[in-house]
């Protein structure tokens, strides 16, 4: 009699401890996933309208602080996006939690892109080719401006002369101007800001 009461008590206690160890609603599954095309702070995700989670450097993944239990409904939404993002979309963000569904979540952002224009001055020779890294543009003799490929906001750009025109030498100025260097005219390199009118200047002589 005594021993059976004791045994029941021990079992009940063990059960209670076991349950509480599981965390009264905080479950054993981490809500996490990959993040694509995020380059700076500002992406905040929510689950079921709460548990705000910041996506931080190196901006490749997220993980919610609160865990969920199997069969809990999760619904991941975007609360705010980085300043250089056009939009961020959650993929497979709404389901009942199990080992399969929690492995399928990701967030993909689209970064804003802006025009980069090269203003061409005094070009008289043929054959000028200007590049921004892998973006190559042939410049016709009568061109006044050249539209380079769009550049992600926050990304670097550096316009250079790949090939000089016949009989002339062209140099690139503009881009970032160092305020600490009097007379700095820039070298055609900078970081793409939020504006649509970023230009560099290609000046040819003689």
């Amino acid at each position: 009699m005594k021993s059976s009461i004791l045994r029941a008590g021990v079992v009940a206690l063990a059960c209670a401890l076991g349950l509480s160890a599981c965390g009264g609603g905080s479950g054993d599954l981490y809500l996490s996933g990959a993040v694509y095309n995020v380059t700076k702070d500002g992406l905040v995700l929510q689950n079921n309208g709460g548990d705000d989670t910041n996506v931080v450097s190196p901006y490749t993944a997220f993980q919610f602080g609160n865990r969920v239990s199997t069969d809990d409904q999760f619904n991941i939404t975007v609360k705010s996006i980085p300043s250089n993002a056009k939009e961020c979309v959650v993929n497979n963000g709404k389901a009942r939690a199990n080992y399969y569904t929690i492995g399928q979540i990701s967030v993909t952002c689209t970064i804003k892109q802006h025009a980069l224009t090269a203003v061409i001055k005094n070009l008289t020779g043929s054959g000028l080719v200007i590049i921004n890294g892998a973006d190559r543009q042939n410049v016709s003799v009568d061109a006044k401006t050249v539209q380079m490929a769009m550049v992600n906001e926050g990304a670097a750009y550096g316009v250079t002369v790949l090939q000089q025109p016949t009989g002339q030498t062209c140099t690139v100025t503009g881009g970032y101007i160092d305020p600490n260097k009097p007379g700095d005219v820039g070298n055609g390199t900078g970081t793409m800001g939020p504006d649509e009118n970023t230009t560099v200047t290609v000046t040819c002589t003689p």
Partner: protein
Amino acid sequence: MKFSLARPAFALAITLTLASCGGGGKATFPINVTVSGLQYPGLVLSTNGQDLTVNPPATTGQDVVLTFPNQIEYGQTYEVTPKDATITNHTYTGGSQPKHQNCAPTLFPAYGTAGQLAKIDIRYACAILAYPLTGTVNGLKGTGLVLANGSTAGTIGVNPVLDTNNTPTGAAVTFAMNPVPYNTTYGVTVLTQPTNPTQTCTVTGGANGTGGGTMDDAAENNKGVTNLVVTCQ
């Protein structure tokens, strides 16, 4: 008498039925191949003693769908590799790859046994080879130097060499930009000049002498562009 005639006829019927199951030939399987991303000629795939030359599609970006000339029989094993490739645990190196590209199996294994799956469907994906873009920074004493190669190839920071007292020595530092794909231009520029002390760095070298060029055949034969020089004063 009647019976004795019927019996041989029955035996003949059985023989015919068996023949239609076996002697007429086992089920055979075509080896289908889909190659994506192919841009240059030279790819030859090989399996079961057969070669299949894969030419680039008429329209860049389209998949090339081909079938090996001869089908294989149920139970025969196959392994589709670039011709004469070295095979190590079903990964293939070398062999008849296209120019400027490397192709490898994707999605599914390129080996198996005919009949294992309803259909033999081999997938290869080809990527353009990329080559190193490297050089040396001379005279760097300040901190914060950042080099860029346009907008899509990333940036790298370069730190000065320090002596045991943490004083910058200005000694040469090597750097490596992200590799550049074949037939792609590169133009290395100084995104951020070093400060403390303030320095001005300029880029020379590359194919055009000012840090630019194209990763062309000459650069490919040279295993990349390694002659960039950034001079800081």
